[in-house]
């Protein structure tokens, strides 16, 4: 007579079979692989939703004068807590005046060629302002700007133009929170470079653990498990910009 299942269980050895331990190890490894922030090789910077500024495909200026395929930008403070000219100077330094390896200016064989306008954005007439590709705005909160609110810096693209293969945008705006940029330190540069990366076409992490040595995947995205403190655009970031500028996007 066969023993009942209950009798079988009672008769089993106290320890679990070895295959169960091995299977649990495998399950936990799979889950950990999905969740832990490991450095992965791939930027997902070639996707179909890579909005970017139109002028990064060309470079027709000189070393002393911007062309109409270069990028002009202006800076505007909307708060008494940030001195506009000082912030403009700091943004210019961050983008174009530090060591070449650590700045966006000159990326993609100078197709990213950043020129700061002398005055704040609102000081230009409508026609001139229309020639300025990027605008950096700083305020204590951006509740009037979608997806910014009171705690996020954010980016907006305006004026889509189809060029025969894809749509890009004539104008980009970066809305910076005062709290993110008021210290004029590496954290400030981190925000400036991250938002500029968006303007050029780079994306945020796509999922938890999508971390790498990148201004878009650094510890500003601690919520995604990213821990790299890098504050400048990395070789990987610049390589992605080259692909976008070359129009080799995979749609």
């Amino acid at each position, binding site marked *: 007579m*066969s023993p009942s*299942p209950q009798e079988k269980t009672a008769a*089993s050895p106290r320890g*679990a*079979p070895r295959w*169960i331990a091995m*299977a*649990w190890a495998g*399950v936990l490894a*799979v*889950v950990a692989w*999905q*969740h832990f922030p490991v450095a992965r090789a791939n930027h997902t910077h070639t996707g*179909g*939703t*890579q*909005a970017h500024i139109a002028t990064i495909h060309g470079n027709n200026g000189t070393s*002393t004068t*911007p062309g*109409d395929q270069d990028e002009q930008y202006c800076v505007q403070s909307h708060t008494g807590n940030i001195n506009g000219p000082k912030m403009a*100077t700091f943004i210019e*330094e961050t983008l*174009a*005046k*530090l*060591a070449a390896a650590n700045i966006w200016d000159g990326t993609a064989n100078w197709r990213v060629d950043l*020129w*700061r306008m*002398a*005055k704040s954005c609102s000081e230009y007439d*409508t*026609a001139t*302002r*229309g020639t300025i590709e990027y605008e950096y705005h700083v305020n204590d909160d951006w509740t009037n700007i*979608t*997806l*910014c609110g009171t705690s996020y810096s*954010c*980016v907006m*693209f*305006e*004026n*889509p*133009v*189809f*060029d*025969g293969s894809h*749509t890009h*945008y004539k*104008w980009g*705006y970066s809305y910076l929170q005062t709290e993110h940029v008021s210290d*004029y*330190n590496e954290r400030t540069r981190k925000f400036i470079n991250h938002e500029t990366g*968006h303007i050029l076409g780079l994306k*945020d*992490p796509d*999922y*938890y653990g999508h971390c790498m040595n990148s201004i878009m995947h650094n510890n500003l995205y601690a*919520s995604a498990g990213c821990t790299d403190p890098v504050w400048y655009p990395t070789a990987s970031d610049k390589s992605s910009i080259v692909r976008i500028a070359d129009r080799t996007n995979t*749609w």
Partner: protein
Amino acid sequence: MSRFTRREMFHVAAMVGVLVLGARCAGNEAVDATQAYPRLDSALLMPDRSALGICVELAPSLQARSGELLATLRADVASLQARHPLWSKADFGREPVRMQLGCPGAAMPSARLESKGATVGPGFTKSPSPFRTFVYVLDDARAREVLGEERAIRARAELAQVDDHVVAEVSTALVVRASDLGTASFQETWLSKGLGLRPLREAAEPAITDFMPKSSEGSGVMPSP
């Protein structure tokens, strides 16, 4: 006769549960299932737009002329369709153009608009409309208030999310005088801009002269790394 003990079955069920939970909780943090995301390989800009859709709002004083004005605008679109080299590549020729009276939000600008940075229409939305372009047609009196010296103005009509904290224009507002419909400048310049196409004819932009030289030293706010 079972080959597995109840305890082993419990472990297997628990493993499956952990795997399912792990898969559900990973990989989708940045994707909002309720958000429609743009596609930029097409000038239609949203994946659910199969045709070029244009909605039209008329100033109240123009309502009696709605048939005539819509017919003129249809002729303008047909003219641009015949002449613009990127019309087909933009996916505008995939299906017949759809035009209707009345736009989502039913906004009608009444105050002065700037030609950069203005929004006329719904603004940010998780579900952009089928309309690539919102055309607002003004009478002369209202046009003087809204457009000032400008012939027409393009603005954002709808914005959609493209990343965590990034939004992009996916529908364009075109604010125009009724008297400009049917003109060559409307077809070649403003209608092209309103559809996201490079204008067939465009005035040269002002020369850029007010820029900072690049040869100066760092700001001195912080030493270079």
